[in-house]
């Protein structure tokens, strides 16, 4: 463990940005354009420098930056300390790098918006929180970052808060995340308590890894501790990383500005759950059952979300469900023990998903706000840069070799089959096929075929300015070439050779089939989709309505809660609580009304009471 003071700057630079934008942003719009992205870019540079320093260390070395002692509660200690090992270095580089590009893009996208400075303040705050999350040396500090990104997600989703739907979407994101956070906290408490029973009063990652034996043997309520902790922490991950059952906030989160969707809900925040499990893989290794749960949930989510994506008409919704699905892949990878592959997919996904979102933003921007794909089409000619970059991203996510998505997805699938999780592997392949299909569908509907654009939008149509297209191009480079980054090797997870050739061929074939089908249905024979939809009838409606999960939650959870709250607010509070309080007053008044009749005003009555009192007193003394 090598001490350093370098790491804190990765966090402090964006944090300084927050202060700048909060206090000076309003008056210095021109400066905001430079400061906002600039500070994140500087953080990226520092991250690179730190990464190089890390590389110079011998195998297994890591950098640690200790700022100060944060919590001292009896024997429990938590330091404000940052650590840089291979995992957090990869994450930090992704967050700052992709984050920087998105900040630059935002300068163009949010141009002229009334809340320009506020936007960059929130974005910088998010970056700070996310970096705290990935660089934290102990779990409480990680949780600070965890909560911080949740807060920023709320602030940014509801950025245009004047519209109630946006504010509601922000609230939904925060509340659903909170449920996950509750699970996460319970997991932390259990972990701390278990370790504490053996005198280890800390939640440092290093300390946890040193005391795995303690965790291995302990039980709580008959259940092994690693299993319970793993499941509880995973609940937090399902919330933050939008898996079943807590994914419902992510599609609604598209109410926020598109760069926000790119950064938070594609590249970084939603990956926090994946990072957390990767960070604690030593604990999860002690509980194979927990890992199985993770893998199954991941695979199921991947397929489920992919199905829903095939029937969505809003361009951002398709991408939202796509994100949920791809996150499922990452959890599948974690669950079958392929941590390196999962993180690899995280990195490639950051490139192509951010690119897809930013490209969609470019389309929306060019059309003056249109988001429904049924009113797009034929935009290839007018938006060339956007078209080519998005096509690159689409091919990457579909898993076409030699683009990045192909490598990362195949690593996960081959690990699944190698670990005898054949069912999960097949599910993954199905989802891959659907992924290719719906992404192809998106590109075809938006850029190819005949134009269905409305006249006003067509009049407005223009390619985006360089400040937006340059980031697109840079991300496209990453999406195309990112497959050659030796990410799994960096993380020390060298698999047994590469994926088997048969699997690679099968995956590629499925991708090609999906893309071809999309092309047929949406360019060659545009009349077909409606016929097929009519044939599928009710099932198609169900898929398009996202299986009515939101409505289900509303009936099962939201309404009963509101009803209970009503009972409290209308029944218990006024009648019982106020009743008791007012009742006490009434009681006192009534009692006093009785007793004050003693004050007759007649002196002789008072004298009588004197006499009686004196007699009683004397009687007591005489009687003793």
């Amino acid at each position: 463990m090598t001490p350093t003071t370098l790491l804190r700057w990765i966090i402090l630079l964006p944090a300084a940005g927050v202060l700048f934008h909060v206090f000076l942003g309003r008056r210095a719009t021109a400066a905001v354009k430079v400061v906002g992205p600039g500070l994140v870019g500087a953080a990226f540079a520092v991250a690179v420098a730190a990464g190089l320093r890390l590389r110079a260390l011998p195998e297994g070395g890591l950098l640690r930056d200790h700022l100060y002692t944060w919590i001292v509660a009896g024997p429990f200690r938590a330091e404000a300390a940052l650590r840089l090992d291979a995992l957090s270095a990869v994450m930090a580089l992704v967050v700052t790098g992709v984050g920087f590009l998105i900040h630059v893009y935002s300068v163009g996208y949010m141009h002229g918006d009334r809340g320009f400075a506020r936007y960059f303040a929130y974005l910088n705050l998010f970056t700070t929180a996310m970096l705290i999350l990935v660089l934290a040396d102990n779990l409480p500090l990680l949780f600070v970052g965890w909560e911080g990104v949740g807060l920023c997600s709320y602030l940014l989703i509801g950025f245009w808060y004047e519209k109630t739907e946006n504010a509601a979407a922000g609230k939904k994101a925060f509340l659903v995340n909170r449920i996950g956070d509750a699970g996460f906290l319970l997991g932390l408490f259990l972990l701390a308590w278990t370790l504490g029973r053996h005198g280890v009063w800390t939640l440092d990652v290093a300390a946890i890894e040193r005391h795995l034996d303690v965790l291995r043997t302990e039980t709580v309520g008959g259940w092994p501790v690693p299993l319970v902790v793993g499941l509880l922490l995973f609940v937090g991950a399902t919330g933050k990383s939008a898996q079943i059952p807590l994914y419902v906030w992510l599609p609604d989160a598209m109410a926020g500005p598109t760069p926000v969707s790119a950064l938070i809900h594609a590249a970084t925040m939603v990956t926090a759950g994946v990072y957390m499990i990767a960070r604690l893989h030593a604990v999860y290794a002690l509980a194979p059952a927990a890992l199985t749960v993770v893998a199954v949930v991941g695979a199921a989510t991947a397929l489920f979300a992919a199905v829903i994506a095939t029937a969505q008409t809003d361009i951002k919704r398709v991408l939202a469900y796509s994100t949920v699905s791809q996150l499922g892949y990452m959890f599948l990878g974690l669950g079958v023990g392929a941590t390196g592959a999962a993180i690899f997919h995280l990195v490639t996904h950051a490139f192509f998903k951010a690119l897809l979102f930013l490209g969609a933003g470019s389309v929306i921007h060019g059309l003056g706000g249109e988001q429904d794909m049924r009113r797009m089409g034929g935009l290839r000619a007018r938006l060339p840069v956007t078209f080519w970059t998005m096509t690159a991203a689409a091919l990457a996510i579909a898993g076409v070799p030699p683009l990045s998505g192909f490598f990362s997805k195949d690593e996960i699938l081959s690990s699944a089959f190698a670990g005898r999780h054949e069912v999960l592997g097949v599910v993954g392949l199905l989802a891959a096929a659907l992924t290719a299909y719906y992404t192809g569908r998106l590109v075809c509907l938006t850029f190819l075929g005949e134009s269905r654009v409305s006249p006003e939008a067509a009049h407005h149509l223009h390619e985006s300015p360089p400040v937006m297209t340059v980031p697109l191009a840079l991300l496209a480079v990453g999406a195309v070439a990112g497959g050659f980054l030796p990410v799994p090797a960096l993380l020390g997870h060298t698999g047994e050779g590469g994926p088997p050739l048969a699997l690679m061929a099968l995956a590629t074939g499925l991708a090609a089939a999906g893309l071809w089908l999309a092309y047929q249905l949406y360019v060659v024979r545009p009349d077909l989709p409606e016929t097929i939809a009519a044939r599928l009838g009710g099932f198609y409606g169900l898929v398009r309505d996202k299986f009515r999960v939101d409505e289900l939650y509303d009936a099962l959870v939201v309404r009963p809660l509101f009803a209970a709250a009503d009972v409290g607010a209308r029944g218990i509070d006024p009648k019982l609580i106020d009743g008791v309080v007012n009742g006490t007053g009434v009681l006192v008044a009534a009692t006093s009304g009785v007793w004050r009749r003693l004050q007759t005003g007649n002196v002789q009555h008072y004298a009588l009471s004197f006499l009686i009192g004196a007699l009683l007193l004397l009687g007591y003394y005489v009687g003793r």
Partner: protein
Amino acid sequence: MSAPIFLLLAALVLAAALTVVVHPSPVYSACALVVTLFLLSVFFIGLDAQLVAVLQVIVYAGAIVVLFLFVIMLLNLTQTEPRPTAGAPLVAVAVGGGIAVVALVATALRRLTVPTAPGLPEGFGDTAALARRLFTAYLLPFELTSVLLLVAIVGAVGLAKRRP
């Protein structure tokens, strides 16, 4: 004091006291009070409290009751009460209280024994003896009493003054 004389005087005192309390006319009550005080003074002499007896006559009978009569005459409070006593329940309670007092004292007397001194010192009860106690052990109360009298005078004058 010898027993027969005690009994005679006691009977007279009780009669006078009852007159004070029972008689409808305030003036008659005041006169009965004077008689009671005189008789009590005789008791005091019989109990070797000569100075106190004299003071009783001078101060109590001679000043306080005179003050009472003065006020009665000044305010012309001579009329008798139409119904001198309060309602029957209160009378019953009051009488009950009185009986209770006596009963209590009787019980106390039966239980307790008061130590008796062997003999009385020379000059017991005369001025010198009283003065000796008053100006040594009871000096502070003596001084405070003088303040009390001052306060009473000021208060009485202030209360009874005719407001302009």
